[in-house]
C-alpha cells in the first residue's frame, strides 16, 4: 500500500476552505496513478506564494516551495533537468495570472510536459482579500475599496490561446470529478492546465453561486472557438475537459529521448569532447 501523502503539519487553511478539496483530490489522484503503475518517487511539486502554496507543506512529496508567481518557471526547470519527473505546479490566481502570468503563458506556449493546477479563489486570500486578476468588476477589497474597475482575465480562453494542450476546469466541492481531471492531466503528455474553482470562505465565499452555476461538460468541445464560448458562458460555470491535443513536447524537441540527469557526460567524456576534432 502506498504511504500516507500527508506531512502531519498543522493545517492553517480556514475551515471550509476550497483548498481542502484540492488537497484531497491530489492525494487521491496520485494514489490511483501509483496503483496503476506510476512511481511515487517520480512525482515532484512546486508552487508559488499564497494560500494555495501551503499545499506544499501538506503533501509529503519532493519539490520546491518557490517564489511568488514563479512556481511554473521553477516547474519547467525541474522537468527539463529530469524528464522522468511528473511535475505539478500549484498556483493561485494572483500568483499564476498576476505576478507570474508570463510563466503560465510560456509554459503553455512551449507545451512543457508539466501540470499546472490553478487554485482560483478570485482574490488574494493570504494577504487579506485584495482583488486578483480573476476578480469580477466591482470586487471590493482593501486595495479596491470602491470596487474593482478592471475586467478579469478568463483563465481558460487565455490558456487555450497560449497553446495549452490539455485544458480543464474543476470545482473543489466536486472532489471525485476533480480527481478524475487531475489523473487525466497527469496522464496527458504536454502542458496540462486545470482551473479549479475554489471558494475563499473568508473573502470571496462563492459556494452558493458556484453550486448553482456549475454544469458538467458532456463532451470535449470540437473547436477552440466553442471551447472558449463555453468557458466564458456567463450563465454556467462548465466543468470538465475543454481541450485535449497530442502535440510535440518541449523537452523531446530539445533533446529527444535523452535524460540530462542520467545521461550527463562525465569529466573524462567532456575532456574528450573538448579535444575532439
Amino acid at each position, binding site marked *: 500500500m*502506498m*504511504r500516507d501523502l500527508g*506531512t502531519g*503539519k498543522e493545517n492553517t487553511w480556514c475551515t471550509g476552505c476550497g483548498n481542502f478539496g484540492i488537497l484531497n483530490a491530489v492525494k487521491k489522484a496520485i494514489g490511483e496513478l501509483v496503483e496503476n503503475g506510476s*512511481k*511515487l*518517487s*517520480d512525482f*515532484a511539486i*512546486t508552487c508559488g*506564494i499564497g494560500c494555495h502554496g501551503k499545499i*506544499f*507543506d501538506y503533501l*509529503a*512529496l*519532493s*519539490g*520546491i*516551495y*518557490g*517564489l511568488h508567481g*514563479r512556481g511554473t*518557471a*521553477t*516547474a*519547467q*526547470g*525541474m*522537468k*527539463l*533537468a*529530469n524528464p*522522468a*519527473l511528473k511535475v505539478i505546479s500549484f498556483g493561485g490566481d494572483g500568483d499564476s495570472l498576476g505576478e507570474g502570468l*508570463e*510563466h503560465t503563458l*510560456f509554459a503553455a506556449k512551449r507545451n512543457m510536459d508539466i501540470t499546472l493546477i490553478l487554485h482560483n479563489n478570485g482574490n488574494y486570500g493570504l494577504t487579506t482579500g485584495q482583488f486578483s486578476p480573476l476578480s469580477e468588476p466591482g470586487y471590493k477589497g482593501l486595495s479596491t475599496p470602491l470596487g474593482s474597475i478592471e475586467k478579469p482575465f478568463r483563465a481558460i480562453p487565455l490558456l487555450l490561446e497560449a497553446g495549452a494542450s490539455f485544458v480543464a476546469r474543476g470545482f473543489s466541492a466536486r472532489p471525485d470529478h476533480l480527481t478524475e481531471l487531475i489523473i487525466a492531466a497527469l496522464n496527458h503528455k504536454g502542458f496540462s492546465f486545470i482551473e479549479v474553482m475554489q471558494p475563499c470562505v473568508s473573502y470571496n465565499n462563492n459556494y452558493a453561486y458556484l453550486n448553482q452555476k456549475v454544469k458538467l461538460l458532456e463532451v470535449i468541445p470540437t473547436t477552440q472557438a466553442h471551447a472558449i464560448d463555453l468557458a466564458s458562458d456567463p450563465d454556467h460555470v462548465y466543468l470538465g475537459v475543454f481541450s485535449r491535443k497530442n502535440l510535440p513536447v518541449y523537452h523531446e524537441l*530539445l*533533446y529527444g529521448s*535523452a535524460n*540530462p*540527469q*542520467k*545521461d*550527463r*557526460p562525465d*569529466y573524462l567524456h*567532456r*575532456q574528450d*569532447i*573538448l*579535444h*575532439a*576534432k
Partner: protein
Amino acid sequence: MAIRTVIIGGKAGEGVKKAAQVVANTLFRQGWQVFQADDYQSLIKGGHNFSSVSFSDSEVHTAYAKANLLISFDQRSYTAHSEDMADADSLHVYNSDMTPEAVQEARGKTLGLPLSTMMKQIYGPGGNVSLAAVSVFFLWMGYPQAELEAVIAREFKRNVEDNISYAKAVYQAARQAGIGGSQIPDSEFPLISMEQSVQRFTSGNQAMALGAWLGGLDFYYAYPMTPASSILHYLALKTTTHKVYAIHAESELAAANMAIGSVVSGARTAIGSSGGGFALMQEAFSLAGITEAPLLCFLASRPGPATGVSTYTAQEDLPFALNQGHGEFARIVAAPDSPQRAFSLAAELLSLAWEFQCPVILLSDKHLSESSQNLTLPDEVPWARVEQGVPGSSYQRYSITESGVSPLLFPGSENIDDNTVIKWNSHEHLPSGLRTDKAEAMIAMKDKRNRKSPAISIATQRHERVAFYGEQGTPVFAYGSGVMELREARKHCSKPFIIVALIYLTPFPSEELSVYSGKEIITLEHSSTGNLDRFIRQNLDVSIKHSVLRYDGRPFDPLELAKIMEDIL
C-alpha cells in the same frame, strides 16, 4: 618583438567584426598571440563600428588604439581614424568610392581603392565589402593569394565563387598599388597544427562558458542582454556536441527560477545577464540563498544605471555584485582578470557552488566578456561534485550539520525510493524542508547556513585568489579588464609597478593582501565614484595615493595608460 595592430572600420552591417575575426583567427592559426576588441553601437545598420586586432609573439592583454594597418569602408571611418596611425610605416587603406574627402595623413601612407565599384563589377547588387579587409591584410602580411582563397572559402560560406573573385581582385589591385613585402618576420602557412593544439582563440564569454561546461555545467538559462548574450549563443551552439542545454527564457525572472528548478533536479546550472537583467534575477538569487541552491551566475557589466550604454564597458556593478539579493546568506563573488582566467574560474566557481550549496557570481565586464584572446586549455579544472545524502524516510534536505552543508538527493533519480521526500523551501524551514516561523527553528537554520562561510573562505584558498604581475614598485590594485589594461601598459611604462589583481572578492582574500596593510597603493577601475576604492578600504588598511577612474565606456589604450601611470607613479 613589436606589437602590431590592424583596425577595420565601417558601418554596422558591413561585416567589420567578422572581417576582424577572420584576421584575428588567421593570425592565431599562424601562431601569433592575438587580442581582438570590437567597438560597436547598439544598432543594426549604419553608425560607426570598428574592430582592433593587436598581435605579437608574446601575450597581448588588450588592444591598441593606433594601427599599423587601418582599413576604412566609408568616410566616417576614414575621418574617425585619420589620427590613429601608429608610425610613419603605417598604412591606411580606404574605400575611395565612399570617401570623397580623403586627405594625406599626418603620418603613414594612404591608399584609396574603389572597393564598392569592384564589388559591383563582381557581385552586381549585394556583395560583401568586409572581404576587402581580409584581402588587404593578407597582402600586407605577405601571405599568398592561394591561402587567402582558402580562408575566404572557409569563413564566408554564402556566394563563395563571387567572394573569391572579389577577394582576389582586391588583393591584385592592392598589390599593383605597391602594398606587400611585409616587414613582419613570417613563417610558412600555417605555422601551427590546430588539431593537435590546446590553444583556442575565444572571447571571455566563450571561455567562461566552456570552462563552466568542462567543470560540469548542464543547463544555462538566460534572457539576451549585451554583453552577456554571447554566453547564451555559444552554449546554444554546443547543444548537440556538448550535451549542454541553453534556454532562452521569456524573461530574466523566468531564467533564474527555471535554473533553480533544474538545480533541484540535480543539474549543474548557470544563469547570466548584464546589470539590468541581473537586477531582475535578484529575488531568485535570494531564493538560491535560502534554498541553498548551487547556482552559477554570470554578471557581465556595461555602463549603467538602467539601460545605460548597451555596448560599451564599465565596472560600475561591483557593489551590486557584492550585495546581490536581499537577506543574509553566504555567497562567492569572483572576477576573472583575463579570458584565460575566465575559463578556469568558471569551473572553480561551479565546483565551489556545489561544494557549499550557495549561489556564486562570476563578475566580468564588456571588454573582458566580448574581447577575444588566445586561450590555452588547462590540463585540469575542478569538477562540480555532489555530497550525496542517504535515501529513505529519515532523509532531510536541510539536515543540521557541523559544516552547515546538508547532503543532497534529487527527486526521480535512480537511488530514490518512495519514502524519500526532498523538500526545498523559499520560506525559512525546518530540517525537513517544511516551512517554519518558530524562533528557535529560525535561529538553528540561519546558524546552519552561516556556518558555511568560514569553510568557504578556506576552500577558496585552493585557488589563485589574487594574482600579482611585476616584482617591484607601487602596488596598483585592479580587477577584471582593468588588470588586462595594466598588464599591457606595464610593457611601455618606464617606472615599475606591481599589479595586484583581485580575483576572489567575496570572501575577501585577506591572507594574500595583508602585506599591503599600512601601505600606499594606487587603484584603477572603470567607474566614476571609486567602487573599488571603497571596497578595498572596507577590507584593508591602506592609503590610496591615486585612483585611476575611467567611465566613458572605452577601454584604455596601453600607451595612453602607460603615460598616465608614469605621471602618477
